[in-house]
């Protein structure tokens, strides 16, 4: 009886993972090139100037890896709500697809990671 129920739950689980695939990859700018055309979560730190308007024509900025010395920068095009904490130097996560060298983000998918929430910014103040 219990075994049967557990099996049923497991079956639902397997059906789901086989239909919906196994999650979205979370990657940094240095490896995003390998996933061109795929839906991914791009994780990185904003560098340089932020240009454009997220509510008119899209906001453009460059993203680099959070850690490591990789020199790769990825161009991001984003539109929709911009979190309060978004600015150059912040770590962010954005969902979208790499198309022709530009990462086209899904509208409203931008999330900032705020390193100063529980311990103050020592390195990125």
């Amino acid at each position, binding site marked *: *009886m*219990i075994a049967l*129920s*557990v099996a049923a*739950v497991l079956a*639902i*689980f397997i059906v*789901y993972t086989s239909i*919906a695939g*196994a*999650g*979205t*990859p*979370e*990657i940094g700018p240095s490896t995003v090139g390998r996933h061109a055309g795929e839906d991914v*979560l791009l*994780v990185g730190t904003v560098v340089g100037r932020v240009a454009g*308007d*997220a*509510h*008119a024509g899209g906001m453009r900025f460059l993203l680099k890896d959070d850690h490591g010395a990789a020199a790769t920068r990825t161009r991001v095009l984003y539109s*929709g*709500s*911009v979190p*309060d*904490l978004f600015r150059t130097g912040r*770590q962010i*996560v954005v969902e979208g697809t790499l198309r022709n060298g530009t990462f086209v983000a899904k509208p409203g998918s931008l*999330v*900032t*990671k*705020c*390193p*100063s*929430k*529980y*311990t*103050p*910014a020592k390195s990125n103040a």
Partner: protein
Amino acid sequence: MADLGRAALLLSFALVAYALVGGSLAAWKRRRRLAFSAQNALVASFATTLVASIVLWIALWRRDLSFVYVAQHTSRSLPLGYALSAFWGGQEGSLLLWLLILTGYASLAVLLNRRSRELIAWTVPVLGGIAVFFALMLCFVSSPFTTAAAPADGAGMVPSLQNPYMLAHPPMLYLGYVGLTIPFAFAMGALLARRTDERWIVATRRWTLAAWTFLGVGQLLGAHWAYVEIGWGGYYAWDPVENAALMPWLAATAFLHSVMIQEKRGMLKIWNVTLVSLAFCLSVFGTFLTRSGVINSIHSFSQSSLGGWFLGFIVVVTVFSVALIYVRLPLLRTKTKLESLVSREATFLYNNLLLVALALTILWGVVYPLLTQAVNGETRSVSKPYYDFFLHSFGLPLLLLMGIGPLVAWRRASLRALGKTFAVPAAVSVVTGAVLLGLGFGSSPPGLLAYTFSAFVAASIALEFVRGRSATGSLRRLVARNRRRYGGYIVHAAIVLLAIGIAGSSAYQTIRERSLQRGQSMQAAGYTLTYESLETRQLQNAQQTSAVINVSRSGSHVTTLHPGKSWFPVEQSASNDVSIYHDPRSLGDVYTIADGISKNGTLDLKVLVKPLVNLVWAAGFVFVFGSLVAMWPDAVEQRKLADRYAAVPV
């Protein structure tokens, strides 16, 4: 001052270590006086931890910036209430709060159960052992009493934490997380003492209920906080840290139900000790997630040195409880078997499986990025569609079961009797479903199902009350006679409200976004929003700019909303000030966000119309009321228990 705090913590560490070692020795060698002194040590550790906590509070109150913790989490201009709440705004303070609540709970539990010597003999060292971990962290790894030369001003508090909810939400969650320690410690204590009857369950029933209520309320407060403050228009985002609180709550919900079967029928003993261990492990895991920063979260905590320690602690607790349950398996086996798949016991079992399945699939989703990283070196994560799928496939059947379970007889129910009992609720739900389908609610099948099932459950709860009332004559007497049962039904009613609120506000919401110039207006679900002007105000520690939005419906003025942004100079960051209109007619909200305000006065306005969302918050009040009814001391129950244990040698 800092020295006093440090000394008090060291003393706490010594006392709880004594409770662990002395208590174990006393229980093992059956030394009464040693056992007594171990209990006293636990109580004393509460006093010393309280001293340490008061020291920290005084430092926060005086903004004594020579305390590194105070300098990092407050500033001179931060209002006093938020400065005091910075106690749980950072890692060190949160750990201290854990220890404070843990020793407080442990003392109370020990004092209340002092006469059941056998029951608490092994519980005291288990509680001591858990407290040792937190005291160790506080004394040697992450101390709130580190001092340094005082800076000119503190770093301040992140603006989104500067909200009245900061005063209530974290302590509530901690009261819940830590509260689960008590049933866990009593269960382990009972196993160590080779007592596998249900006394530990009876002794901790109210503790579990209280912890579970705190967790539930804490989560709803957090949801409401996110809703009114964070400003994205939702209240739950399947974020790892939110899930961290949901998982132990689900496990505790399963536990609260399954212990009833052990009390009534002596079944499921192994399952119950497993569940209580799972709930406790998940609550420690929750604290670990919140504090370690191993998983990307919008709550984003910085990477900290504590992760490894917590992981080690979780491993120790898991290995300890699994091993103990395994060793005691022969004592835990029961002769009672499930008699029928159509019985109260069986519905409880289905409920348990669904709840645990939901908790474990959420756990899988939370640790998925870590697992994929470990297995093939690439982090992959799952998001809303994954969680929504399992919420629908496990949550909706759970909702339905909530209506079925209470109406099915214990042991074995006949199908004919069942047909009779379910005629009314089934009819109500079919009619509700058909009417809603006619009104166009078929646009979201899960939403329609949630409404239909809710109608079924509501009808079956109402039926129970009506039936009981005609048997006893008055509603008050009915509830007084069986508080636990009817309190449970009230909680079920709260869950129905919650389900309706969630379904309404997520499956049937309207979202509109537009750039507006002064004088322009936009439409959203029957409301017209007109951008009138901009206002600027100076607050104590922030500068606020807000738009004046005139809201009307079919030509007549409804309200004026003020969505805007605040700039905090000390913290060098901005925060969204959303503005919400609660429509008493639809029980829904008109939720406005000023996404952008440009220098020339152009406003990027986002409007969400969320039907029935206020039922989610109403559910919170009903939930607390139901829990209180179920928790209230019950003279009849006490007498029954006394009679029952009179025969059992203690």
